[in-house]
């Protein structure tokens, strides 16, 4: 009961929009930490959350349109993985569909919260900005409470045993399928990033990064970042970005 209430609290903080919440509660790696903390294993929670997070590397919510729900993938994904005692790959395979489900919650939230501007318009015509400010601060979060915190509370309260039973009943071939899916889905995160970053003149750097990692087996990303920053610094000094302007 206490754990379910804490889950609801984390779900509320996870769902409220703003930089004070996005990084500390929404990002799957941090959501995983909190869920892990509630169920007594913050380290395992962090590992699960981080693994799920990879598939959401290039995640973005442009104009309020979610690709797939980052919020619940991390939060409930970690919950399901801990409760079901899953391997990391299987956890990813479960988290991403949960994210799809959460996407409907996001759409419901964005639609419902559209009642607030109508109320704000009335207040604006009276010049009552203090009340507008009040709505801005509690209006959205009050819907988050109903749409995200409440369902998570119920899932945390009643869902744990169900998940366990379900996982135990899965045949071997299905577990193999889910594990392969878990190894596959990070490709989605990478492809979203590629779509964002792709520019013809930057392609050699992509190939270079892949080739170095694939053939040497070195994958410490801090090392790649250091080399990348040096490359960028040298090339810009040599006029790389100016040249690019000429091409356009």
């Amino acid at each position, binding site marked *: 009961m206490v754990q379910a209430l804490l889950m609801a609290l984390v779900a509320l903080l996870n769902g409220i929009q703003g930089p004070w919440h996005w990084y500390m509660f929404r990002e799957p*790696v941090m959501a995983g930490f909190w869920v892990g903390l509630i169920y007594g294993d913050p380290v395992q929670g962090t590992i699960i959350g981080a693994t799920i997070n990879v598939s959401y590397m290039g995640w973005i919510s442009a104009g309020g349109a979610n690709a797939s729900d980052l919020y619940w993938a991390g939060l409930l994904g970690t919950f399901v993985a801990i409760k079901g005692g899953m391997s990391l790959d299987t956890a990813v395979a479960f988290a991403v569909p949960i994210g799809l489900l959460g996407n409907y919650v996001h759409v419901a939230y964005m639609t419902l919260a559209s009642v607030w501007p109508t109320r704000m318009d009335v207040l604006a015509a009276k010049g009552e900005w203090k009340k507008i400010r009040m709505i801005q601060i509690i209006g959205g979060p009050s819907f988050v409470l109903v749409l995200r915190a409440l369902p998570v509370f119920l899932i945390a309260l009643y869902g744990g045993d169900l998940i366990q039973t379900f996982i135990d009943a899965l045949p071997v071939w299905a577990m193999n399928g889910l594990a392969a*899916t878990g190894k596959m889905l*990070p490709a989605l995160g990478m492809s*979203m990033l590629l779509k*964002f970053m792709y520019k013809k003149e*930057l392609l050699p750097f992509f190939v*270079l990064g892949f080739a170095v990692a694939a053939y040497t087996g070195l994958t410490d*990303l801090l090392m790649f970042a250091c080399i*990348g920053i040096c490359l960028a610094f040298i090339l810009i000094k040599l006029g790389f*970005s100016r040249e690019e302007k000429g091409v356009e």
Partner: protein
Amino acid sequence: MADNKVLTKKDVQKAALFWHATSHMTYNYQRLQAGSMTAMMGPLFEKLYPNNPEKIKEGCERQMLYFNTEPRWGAIIPGMTVALEEAYAMDPEGGVDGSLITEIKTALMGPLAGIGDTVWAGLMKPIILSITLAWAMQGYVMGAWAYWLITFGLDMGITYYMFMRGYKLGTDSVDRFLEGGFVKTVTTAIGIVGMFCLGAMIVKYVGISAVLQIEMTTTTLDFGSIMNKIIPSFLPLVFTLLAYWMQVKGKKVTTVLLVLFAIGFIGGAIGFLG
């Protein structure tokens, strides 16, 4: 404008912090960030129009119009809005009027959302994530908190800096900002680092490989190790490019997700992939 200021630096700082904290708090399909803009301007209107409730109402209604941009790099727009509203209040006949404020906001919010999203969500955040997630996946809880510290610090720093810059430069601000080559250099530099890391990230994070083995009379044909000898991490690259190609072709992310899910599940269930 310079000798016509009533807002103190503290007023503007407060507005910047208010914007930072609440820009998305009641995010919605109808008006997106308009509520935060209006609430942010409220106390400033109070100061700009003492004892003139009509003007305050007018200002609130003006700011309640549709507004949406990227909250960090785009914070230059609310910053500029404060400067424009101040100029308008100080000298209503001086060139700046209510519709101009709305026009400028509307003209700039799209381009800045594009730049901001690319730089933040497409480049800065993933690079930070790629490094801190690697720590977190090894079981270092500090990796998760390092992610929070770096992104939150950068988020707040960029928002505050862009907001104050927007206020300082007023109407010229965004033109100067966009034409100065600053954005271009930053985007190119982060693009190089990002693409370089992304290549390595595919090897590190996409673990899918062929596990099919065929027993022959004399030997075992191991597809995974054969492929690895030709190009290591070949399948991760292929599936990433497939997912990328589908998105370029206009497929929704959800569709791409389901396709990858299906390939992975079937491939794993029949023992080809793992």
